[in-house]
């Protein structure tokens, strides 16, 4: 008579293997980004409450805790972007009788797009702030 052993997935399955740990780190990048979003939301709320409240929020950003949160959020955003863009050629495969694009070009286009978007954002921010800061 058959009596198969039914294995149960342990809660610690993701600690068993480096590939699972990398995956969980990639997915966990969402958590610092959630905290950073809440931080920005708090900024908007403080802004609506007046200049003094907003100044307090701005000064909190420069405390060690504020800087740590922003640093972790930046690292998480970068890790998320790099790992996501690296997966793109596996998902976005353009290959039909009418049109075929080399997967390396798809990857390069995404990398260049991400770079251009980020540089554009930094450039636009500097351009907007420069007269106020420099004058």
């Amino acid at each position, binding site marked *: *008579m058959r*009596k*198969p052993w*039914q*294995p149960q997935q342990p809660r610690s399955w993701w600690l068993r293997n480096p*590939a699972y740990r990398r*995956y969980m780190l990639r997915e966990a990048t969402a958590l610092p980004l959630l905290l950073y979003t809440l931080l920005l939301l708090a900024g908007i709320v403080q802004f609506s409450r007046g200049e003094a409240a907003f100044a307090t929020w701005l000064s909190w950003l420069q405390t060690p805790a504020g800087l740590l949160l922003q640093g972790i959020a930046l690292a998480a955003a970068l890790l998320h972007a790099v790992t996501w863009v690296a997966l793109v050629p596996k998902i976005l495969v353009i290959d039909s*009788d009418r049109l075929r694009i080399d997967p390396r070009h798809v990857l390069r286009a995404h990398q260049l797009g991400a770079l251009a978007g980020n540089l554009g954002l930094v450039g636009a921010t500097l351009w907007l702030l420069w007269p106020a800061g420099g004058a």
Partner: protein
Amino acid sequence: MSDTIELAVTRYRPEQDTQPWEQRYTVPCSDDMSVLDALNYIKDALDPSLSHRWSCRMAICGSCGVMVNGEPKLSCKTFLRDYREAGVLEVRALDNLPVERDLVADISGVVEHIEAVKPWLIRHSEAPVDTAHSQTPAQMARYHAFSQCINCALCYAACPQFGRNPAFLGPAALTLAQRYNLDSRDEGSSERMPWLNAEEGVWSCTFVGYCSEVCPKDVDPASAINRGKVASDINYGVNLFRLLRGKGDA
């Protein structure tokens, strides 16, 4: 250099055991010995009660999958020489599957998932037998890697989503669905799309990607499944459009 190596084999004998346990064997170790050779040595010379599954010895039958030091491997394609430094080799049945006995995992659930997606060429009408369905090399290249699957189930042992929910169709079945959907000779994608679109289909995959790392035939199931998500999105849009025009699903 040691000429023996220790194997810690997870045993399970349904007649006597209530749960798996570990038994250690010392086997000869040479550069040309595979883990399968070591298991056969145990079976032949040390302990005839050990059960393991194997057939071709050349990574094509897909029978001899086991966990070696926690990684899903074909035992015929995994060599003792690569584990000399580790000293002990832990061998157990494939993860995420019921264990029938010792190293024999029950893959019948996986086979049912594979059958469900109709992994064969579907034609609306059969062509006369004296002609062939022509296909260009470029058309074949679109699915060729996905057609290399040997149904060894290593990808299922690697997939934590399948471990969590055995109803998930899983890497090999969804890859084979893509393999036939991408075949220019096939006309059956409308019969497979409901499986891709289902809760147990492509959307249960969270792109862990380990299935592609362990695949002994470089099939890249993670890519096939996630391309299946693109196909499922397009299918959703097309079906919505057809619904508005009063037609059935594509």
